[in-house]
């Protein structure tokens, strides 16, 4: 038996729940086939979400999943250029012709799909992004120059959460694109995902008691993002997400974190998302998305 999971035509944070629902009870018993033939677009969040699924299935010792590649040449080229197929080939049995990623000049991909396994990877990510971050954030999005450094700090903190809390490795990707439907302007999106233990299990031993019956994925996300708690007793911990939240307030940016069956977002005025969604289809680990919009125009 094979469980066929159709990859939504537009795979992003909004359609991700539909994607997660396809897996049913986790981990699925059957062999999994991700059917991306009809895919027309995937955000960085969507791309690394698919890799996270492949990684989680491998870690659950399930059969190697299958992935049918998009039919659209343009979509395939884009996914290849973002580095998706390079890692997908390690996790999935790919079906369909995959174009070779071509080196090109400056593009909207600030950071290819990149694995985060250890501290050294965070150094590499930070080193790689510096130049393109200035070009996109300052040059295209109209953010002040110092925003580039804050952005890189946020990226560093988000990646470190994988190394320090997930208990396994993860992925990061950063891209600029135009957010036509929701905002009508250019944005930079950081997506970070891991297949690890998730926020609830990470915080359970130190914080579940005080939440009592409320404890769950949603409460764990609130504790981490709103209250700045950490599983470590070190009082210096837990400041990373709080700092990211603070500078996103200044830039009218958005952060959303999905873990297990819940998603918590700090919602800027331009977005209509709900702050907390619970009872979502389960998906392993944690998925973080940070959106920073261009500053030079009023939202539509």
């Amino acid at each position, binding site marked *: 038996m094979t469980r066929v999971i159709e990859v939504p035509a537009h795979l992003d944070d909004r359609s991700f729940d539909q994607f997660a629902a396809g897996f049913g009870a986790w981990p699925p018993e059957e062999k999994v086939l991700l059917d991306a033939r009809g895919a027309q677009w995937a955000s960085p969040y969507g791309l690394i979400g698919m890799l996270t699924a492949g990684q989680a299935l491998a870690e659950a010792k399930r059969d190697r999943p299958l992935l049918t590649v998009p039919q659209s040449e343009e979509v395939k080229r884009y996914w290849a250029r973002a580095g998706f197929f390079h890692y997908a080939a390690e996790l999935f049995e790919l079906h369909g012709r995959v174009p070779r990623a071509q080196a090109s000049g400056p593009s909207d991909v600030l950071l290819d799909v990149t694995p985060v396994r250890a*501290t050294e990877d*965070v*150094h590499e990510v*930070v*080193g790689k992004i*510096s130049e393109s971050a200035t070009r996109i954030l300052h040059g295209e999005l109209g953010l002040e120059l*110092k925003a580039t*450094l*804050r952005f*890189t*700090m946020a990226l*560093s*903190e988000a990646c*470190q959460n994988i*190394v*320090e809390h997930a208990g396994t490795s993860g992925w990061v990707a950063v891209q600029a694109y135009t957010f036509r439907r929701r905002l009508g302007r250019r944005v930079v999106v950081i997506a970070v995902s891991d297949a690890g233990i998730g926020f609830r299990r990470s915080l359970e031993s130190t914080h579940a008691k005080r939440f009592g019956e409320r404890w769950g994925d949603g409460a764990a996300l609130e504790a981490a993002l709103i209250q700045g708690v950490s599983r470590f007793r070190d*009082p*210096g911990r837990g*400041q*990373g997400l709080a*700092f990211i939240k603070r500078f996103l307030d200044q830039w009218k940016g958005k952060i959303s974190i999905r873990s297990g069956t819940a998603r918590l977002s700090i919602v800027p005025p331009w977005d209509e998302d709900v702050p907390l969604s619970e009872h979502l289809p389960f998906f392993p680990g944690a998925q973080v998305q940070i959106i920073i919009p261009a500053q030079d125009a009023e939202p539509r």
Partner: protein
Amino acid sequence: MIQTIRIGNLLRETVMRPYRCLVTRPTGAAVRCRIEEALARSDCHITLLDFSDVELLDLSCADEVVAKLLLAEAAMPPRFLVLRGLREDHHEAIEYVLTHHRLAVTATMHGRGEPRLLGWVSPDARAAFDCLCALGAARPGDLAEALAWSEGRAREALQALLAHRLIRPDGERYLPLLSA
């Protein structure tokens, strides 16, 4: 005596790679250990931690390098730390973590000499710090006169700065750390 520790050099020696960005907790903790070793070997009363060749300092490293160093130094015999060559983003990260821990440190910004106070102190202590830097050296009475405070209030503010090791005593006077 004053010694200078160049944090960028220490970073590269510690990780043995040409990194210019001070990021991640393990890296910060390793750099802090090297600073502590250098402090333990030194007889200098004032140590300048020079950040001028650090391209980026993230929050985790601000906490590991600066906040934890100050927490550890509080238990050591009186010696003074000053941060030098900070850029605005370094300043922001360090200020954030020090405020979280209710710590404070004297710092100078990149390319500028005048000291400023980073972190958390009472408003009176902050005003006293600024006034003392302007005066160069002062007794509690001098400070009280300059700020139109009672002498008791000035003395209390100076004691708070002394407790944070943001100024040093010199007989009856108090000096900013970077004065001659």
